[in-house]
């Protein structure tokens, strides 16, 4: 089983100028290790809509890699997005989707997400037509494989089997001292748009 923060450290070590969209239980841990202008918290938005929001950016900016740090509960809420991605005439080669999979709705107290013992993200991702699909539960293997995965053309789906933790619900109401959670969603959105315009 992986530790979320260790996985995020490895992802941060690969990151140069990619857009990173973090949501729910990933948004605060990511903010603790990154303050990049192309970081964006899908917080105060709509749960389940980080992967599809990121898809729109990836299609609009094909030369810019978009990395999504999604949760398994969030991914289940918008499972159809996986089919939308692979149905496109040109699925985005710049789209790298991480599902941080702990089997629970972490920020509301680790209630179990709906799935049985045979549930498989790998099967779902492959079944919707993703060709690059990975799953990790060992940090050493992730560390070895991540550089190759990071640089390969996507869309790429990576399931990270992480241990349960106790991240509180993120918000933009002043409780978290991280720049991207200290401004409104609209401000963050328009800042990201401007930053991308200037590149």
């Amino acid at each position, binding site marked *: 089983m992986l530790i979320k923060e260790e996985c995020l450290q490895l992802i941060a070590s690969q990151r140069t100028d990619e857009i990173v969209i973090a949501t729910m239980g990933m948004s605060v841990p990511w903010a603790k290790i990154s303050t990049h202008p192309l970081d964006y918290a899908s917080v105060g938005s709509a749960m389940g809509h980080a992967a*599809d929001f990121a*898809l729109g*950016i990836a*299609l609009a900016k094909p030369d810019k890699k978009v990395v999504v740090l999604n949760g398994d509960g969030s991914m289940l809420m*918008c499972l159809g997005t996986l089919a939308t991605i692979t149905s496109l005439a040109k699925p985005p080669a710049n789209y790298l989707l991480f599902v941080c999979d702990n089997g629970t709705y972490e920020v509301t107290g680790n209630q179990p997400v709906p799935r049985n013992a045979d549930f498989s993200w790998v099967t779902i991702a492959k079944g919707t037509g993703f060709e690059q699909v990975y799953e990790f539960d060992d940090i050493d293997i992730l560390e070895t494989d991540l550089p190759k995965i990071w640089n390969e053309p996507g869309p790429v789906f990576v399931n990270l089997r992480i241990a349960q933790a106790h991240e509180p619900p993120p918000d933009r109401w002043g409780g978290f001292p991280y720049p991207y959670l200290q401004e409104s969603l609209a401000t963050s959105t328009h800042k990201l748009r401007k930053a991308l*315009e200037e590149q």
Partner: protein
Amino acid sequence: MASAQKIVDALKKHNITHAVGVPDNGSARIYELLREEPKIEVITVTREGEAFAIAAGLYVGGKKPVIIIQNTGFLESGDAIRGTVINMQVPVVVFIGYRGYHNRDADGKWVDSVAAFLEPTLKAWDLPYHKLETDADIDSIDWAYGKSAETSLPAAVLLIGHAK
């Protein structure tokens, strides 16, 4: 009923780059024509809420999407609309097929509940809209683009009947 070609021409005048949504009978011809446009990419989604999130992302990346869905899908999309295009302040035009508009019982009440729910919901969510039923209403598209640009928020065009 309105001309699908005139609707597409109006959208082209506003330089849309993407059409995102789920087709219905009313918008089927519009989608067909949009797919023939080399400068417009059509993205069919699995559920209408996705359309709002993808459109918001396209906007962030500098593109100009239009969303085309049915009123049933609009109702399904509530939290996606709130959490993406409204909270993010994305100026986007949404075409909403007005299913059931012409079907009323002997007492004048709508037979299809989605027709009855549509306009009260738009008003409750504070989403401005105009109706488009015939070619005489094509200007509603210009109105919607003006309104969304002025507010940096969504504006809707309610498409009545099947565009031909």
